[in-house]
């Protein structure tokens, strides 16, 4: 049963003692940080002075400008279980991982871990570019906590898995970035940990290596308890047995990974940060600044030809929307004022997934629409998506306004999520019918 957690009563209902197969037990853990850098340093000095005279600093109370980056989180994880952590940037995932690896101490609650923790967080930590692959294997594995004897035994496996071949005796500086990551990952996965922590490591490397990593994590997960952080919701669904959705340091949902992903996509606040980003982009646009720094392609604004550009996603009744049900109608409403005549106006709307992959694009050119606008003035309209055929997930839309082949405007329309679909594969479900000619009784 999925559980909506975050209340003290439920968290306190966790057993006090660690049961045998529980490898990770996190009980009512909180961690605070300070928003103000100078004040944070002042608190540091005050804590240090208290320690100097032997007084324990009171860590359970918030001081001015402090906030709970992790707020009352509890969960247990047994061997063979894979826990996914989902949440927007800043929701506390990385801090939680640092608490689990013991890099930061908790301010409330406690964490118990049975056995060795293998963190695939900073693969290749401490690599020295001028040292050979071989020397770096010994260095990095020692940093991760392996003994010399252990490294010697696993050395060949590490080299084989990393596929670095002849480069073993070459300095790591001569490696491609992919090779470096492969080597780092290979060392980390050969630690044989009891708890494996994986943070976005699958986002690097080429396709084959990503496959190999997934397989290795799958292999490992039977022997270990795994905690997996990824923005790739498909990975979360595929690899995790359960998941926690985090928001502002709190666990707002805990349950099977499928339902957690669904909950995350339906979360009204999940786009909060992206909305802020949109607002920033919009503000910059209004300030008539040209910037070309998006991974989703360049952003243009030719101030001599166009002004007053507005665009947003709206639903069937015309309200601003940032999430749509699969199969329902959706619109992009746009308006802009042309300052000069345009011989051939072209409007395009590319749609990307959250990893920056182009999923599809719609353009007036595809319809051979002849938009010759010889007078300056207002242009407005709507793009109708008759049926949202994209599968549940987060998407990013842009709008491009062109004069022939010249971009006069290109900017983000906004992020939207597609939700509510019981079962699906991939990113897209076409309209379909199963037609059977014959069925035998």
């Amino acid at each position, binding site marked *: 049963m999925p559980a909506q957690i975050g209340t003290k009563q439920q968290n306190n209902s966790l057993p006090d003692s660690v049961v045998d197969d529980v490898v990770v037990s996190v009980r009512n853990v909180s961690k605070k940080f300070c928003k103000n850098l100078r004040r944070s*340093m002042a608190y540091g000095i005050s804590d240090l002075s208290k320690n100097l005279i032997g007084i324990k600093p009171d860590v359970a109370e918030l001081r001015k400008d402090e906030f709970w980056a992790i707020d009352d989180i509890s969960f247990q994880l047994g061997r063979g279980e894979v826990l996914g952590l989902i949440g927007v940037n800043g929701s506390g995932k990385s801090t939680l991982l640092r608490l689990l690896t013991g890099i930061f101490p908790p301010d409330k609650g406690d964490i118990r871990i*049975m056995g060795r923790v293998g963190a695939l967080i900073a693969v290749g930590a401490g690599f020295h570019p001028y040292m050979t692959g071989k020397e770096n294997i010994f260095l990095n594995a020692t940093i991760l906590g392996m003994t010399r004897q252990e490294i010697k035994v696993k050395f060949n496996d590490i080299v084989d898995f990393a596929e670095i071949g002849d480069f073993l005796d070459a300095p790591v500086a001569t490696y491609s970035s992919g090779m470096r990551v492969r080597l780092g990952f290979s060392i980390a996965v050969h630690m044989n940990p009891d708890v494996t922590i994986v943070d976005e490591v699958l986002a690097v490397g080429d396709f084959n290596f990503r496959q190999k990593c997934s397989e290795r994590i799958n292999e490992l997960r039977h022997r270990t308890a795994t905690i997996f952080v990824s923005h790739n919701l498909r990975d979360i669904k595929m690899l995790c047995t359960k998941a926690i959705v985090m928001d502002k340091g709190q666990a707002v949902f805990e349950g099977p990974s499928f339902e957690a992903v669904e909950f995350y996509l339906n979360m009204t606040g999940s786009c909060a940060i992206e909305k802020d980003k949109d607002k920033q982009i919009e503000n910059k646009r209004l300030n008539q600044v040209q910037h070309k720094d998006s991974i989703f392609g360049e952003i243009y604004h030719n101030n001599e030809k166009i002004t007053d550009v507005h665009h947003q996603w709206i639903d069937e009744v015309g309200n601003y929307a940032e999430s749509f049900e699969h199969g329902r109608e959706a619109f992009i409403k746009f308006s802009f004022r042309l300052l000069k005549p345009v011989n051939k106006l072209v409007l395009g709307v590319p749609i990307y997934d959250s990893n920056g992959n182009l999923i599809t694009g719609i353009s007036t050119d595809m319809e051979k629409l002849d938009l010759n606008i010889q007078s300056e003035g207002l242009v407005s309209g709507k793009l109708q998506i008759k049926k949202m055929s994209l599968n549940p997930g987060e998407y990013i839309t842009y709008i491009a306004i062109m004069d022939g082949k010249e971009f006069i405007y290109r900017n983000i329309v906004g992020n939207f999520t597609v939700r509510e679909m019981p079962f699906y594969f991939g990113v897209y479900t076409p309209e379909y019918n199963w037609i059977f000619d014959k069925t035998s009784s």
Partner: protein
Amino acid sequence: MVKDVSSQITVYRPNQRHEFGFFQTWSIMARNIINSRELIWQLFKRDFFASYKKSFLGITWIFIAPIMGIVSWVFLNLTGMLHPGDIGIPYPAYVLVGTSMWGLFMGFYNSANATLSAGQSLVLQVNYPHEALLFKQTSEHLANFIITFLMNVVVLLINGVIPNWKIIFFPIVMLPLFFLGSAIGLISSMISVVAVDISRIINVVMGLMMYITPLIYSDKVNNPMAKSIIKWNPLTYLVCSARDIIIYGKLYNIEGYFLCAVLSFIAFMLSWRLFYVSEDRIVERMI
């Protein structure tokens, strides 16, 4: 991090490190250092040797700097700019050994001071006993010092000074320098994260301390104020004893030396404990 070895359960909870008494803390830290010797060795190798890997002269560079130092001392001596005083041995030799002992002390201080910053990127990525970094930094400093020191012995011989046989006690005589330098350095290492200004002041003061220690001048000063500053400066006893055991085969001032040595040891143990209970709160401010 506290490990119950029998069941291998690691527990993290607030103010955990305060739960231990002084003696327990020291034994935990000593155990951590012993368990981290492979890590210390690997990091030492990385930082000491790897930086020379790109150069053709390689490890020879470690000897080049001290040789250049000797050349300049010999030259200054030849010009007669440095006149021997009433110190029993040629002045250049006196100053060279004295300043080299000062360098040894400052090296201990600087090594300890870099305990957290030297591992900044690692500290936030991997959990390992940070006290290992103190020893890695110190070993690096000692390795450099030994080479310079051997070169200094050559200079002494050139200047006609034959080191006293009691030089064999030098490794013990210099220990208080390590204790005091590391004690100040460890605290400064934490302060440098949360109070940059104070840490800079400490650095400047440490640099100035050399001038109130009779190293480039004899302690037979006439000014009563200068005399009393020198008298109350613990480094006078510690650094000068390290120098004198080499040149004269005796301690600078036996009572003064032993008193300062004991106080340095206590300071080191206290600062080690303070480092242990505070560093996790300091590390979280390094982001």
